[in-house]
């Protein structure tokens, strides 16, 4: 596949947006930017980096992406930390701290952490700041999770690293914390030209439905997400069962796994048990390279769900809106900003509420259409990768000038 070119996006976002990106990037040409996260495949962070890094390079930024390594034990610890930071009461033991610190040292020794801007994503690699090679570079912690009500012990553990950064990025104002540096609001995005989101041939979509034994004539309700308690797949099945009492429809629960999430297989087994071989519940365990299949499933769906109990930002919500689908999302975290209640979908707070909104939408094709159109326009205006690229470029300019509220450039780059 040929490398991504920013100019390819002009047909989606217009010339003005592309010119704007070149204008801002002109002031940063040759800047070395390094991203570090904990998985190359699976999950929203890896997905965004896969799309964003080549485009930053196309803009003249010398951009690299490194992934930390860890044993299963390390990722068990970071998963517990992740859950605790999203509010689940978990005791952070000295043994956990030791595992975290040992892996931080191992990764710091094996990774080249040089760069003018080093962006560290999420808690797993956050400790690398203690091994910052030189003070002249700018280190930014990018938080993708819902930090609105962290378990105090977990935040205390992470905070001692985060305070050492030069800036932080959050997806919602409610996730911000008391920190001694600038905190910026940058919402995640989707790539409209990626396999996950590009237009598809209807024949391909039909083929995917056939492959998974999904009836194209029966309304399809879909939730695409990792098998994770926080995404509440068990609650989705319960809501579907309530809908099924009166409506003829089917449920698709499609999910993959991420290398940094050891809990996935346990949740998947519980989901399968709860589905209990119901022929109208399709539990699909998709490999990481299933973007086209996910795209097809979303496009074939009547309604898309993201009934999360905690969510930093639901990429699948944005993906579904981009495909013109009405979306029901848990009224938590970033989803509360993504879904405009009543216009692009509905925010739900319970299993009963989810079932009610599904039934309402199943019976109102006009509402589904209007919400779908609004959703696509909402994504076009706010959640495409070009806006995200612009924010990262501005972030690099901002971190260099933490005290200035207005930065005037008097000359073209």
């Amino acid at each position: 596949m040929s490398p991504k070119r920013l100019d390819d996006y002009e047909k989606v976002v217009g010339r003005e947006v592309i010119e704007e990106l070149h204008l801002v990037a002109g002031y940063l040409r040759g800047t070395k930017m390094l991203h570090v996260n904990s998985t190359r495949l699976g999950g929203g962070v890896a997905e965004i980096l896969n799309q964003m890094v080549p485009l930053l390079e196309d803009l003249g930024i010398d951009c690299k992406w490194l992934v930390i390594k860890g044993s299963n034990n390390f990722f068990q610890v970071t998963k517990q930390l992740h859950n605790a930071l999203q509010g689940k009461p978990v005791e952070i033991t000295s043994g956990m701290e030791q595992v975290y610190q040992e892996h931080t040292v191992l990764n710091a020794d094996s990774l080249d952490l040089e760069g003018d801007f080093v962006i560290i994503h999420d808690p797993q690699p956050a400790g690398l700041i203690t091994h910052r090679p030189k003070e002249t570079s700018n280190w930014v912690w990018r938080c993708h999770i819902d930090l609105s009500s962290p378990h105090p012990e977990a935040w205390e553990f992470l905070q001692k690293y985060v305070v050492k950064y030069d800036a932080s990025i959050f997806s919602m104002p409610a996730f911000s914390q008391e920190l001694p540096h600038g905190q910026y609001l940058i919402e995640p995005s989707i790539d409209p030209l990626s396999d996950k989101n590009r237009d598809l041939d209807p024949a391909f979509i039909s083929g995917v439905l056939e492959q998974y034994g999904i009836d194209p004539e029966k309304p399809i309700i879909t939730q695409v997400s990792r098998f994770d308690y926080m995404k509440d797949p068990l609650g989705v099945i319960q809501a579907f069962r309530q809908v099924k009492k009166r409506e003829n429809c089917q449920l698709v629960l499609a999910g993959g796994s991420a290398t940094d999430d050891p809990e996935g297989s346990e949740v998947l087994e519980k989901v399968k048990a709860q589905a209990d071989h119901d022929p109208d519940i399709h539990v699909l365990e998709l490999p990481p390279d299933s973007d086209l299949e996910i795209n097809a499933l979303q496009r074939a769906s009547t309604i898309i769900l993201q009934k999360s109990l905690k969510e930093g930002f639901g990429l699948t919500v944005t993906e579904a809106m981009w495909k013109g689908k009405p979306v029901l999302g848990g009224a938590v975290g970033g989803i509360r900003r993504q879904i405009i209640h009543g216009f692009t979908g509905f925010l739900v707070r319970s299993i009963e509420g989810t079932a009610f909104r599904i039934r309402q939408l199943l019976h109102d094709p006009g509402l589904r259409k209007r919400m779908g159109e609004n959703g696509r326009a909402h994504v076009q205006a706010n959640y495409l990768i070009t806006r995200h690229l612009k924010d990262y470029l501005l972030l690099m300019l901002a971190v260099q000038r933490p005290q200035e509220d207005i930065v005037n450039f008097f000359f073209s780059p």
Partner: protein
Amino acid sequence: MQESQKGRDSRQESRLAREAQGFTFYTERRLVEITGRKASDLKELLQGLYEVSGSSIFYHTHQSFLQRHFTVPFYRNDFATWVAEALGEEGLGERLASINIIDCSSIRELRELLIWTIEDHLRHHETLEPRRAHPDEVFYFSKSKSFVFPTNRIAHTLEEFAWHLTQISHHSLFYHVFVTRLLPYNRDRDFSVWVSEELGKKDLAIRMRQLDPYVRTLEDLKNDLVSLVAEVIGREETDA
């Protein structure tokens, strides 16, 4: 009579000086910074209004103009919207939204009006139990960090100005209309200032300033400005 070299140089200099005073269109991009400050009731909002930076006041009274809306927004002013929707103080929300920002010549003046309006409301309702927002509806003070870039669009005449005006982005229009009015050191980038001081078209400048951007969308504002300028050009052509 043959023109001297000195005279030619002088004319050249004055031509260059005139061109140097052409109008450069700028564009602006914003990154939102979270201040970490929040409010759950009117007193906390008031305290915040006293203490947050001017760019936070500007952000919460202007960010809505750059957003896409699916319906007519309740209010364009975040403080007004929050007070009305999260606290249920609809009367105060309406009063805050009614502050004519077009009449303010600085952020300081706007801040004082916001504060005065809330304090006046509190004085008249001091016996009532203060209302607190639901935890999901807490107000987070943010501010925007603004980056102003020159574009390659420069106008030397009203005709050139009119052409560029039809072409510029909403971000550029937002900067030249909203930002330059409230930030004194950017004032020479106000359309009306250039039209008045460089082109000597005082009447056009007055009519430009009379267009209230706070009751228009950016699209409508652009169309109204373009029509205004086109009208003046048309009249001058007829007179000539």
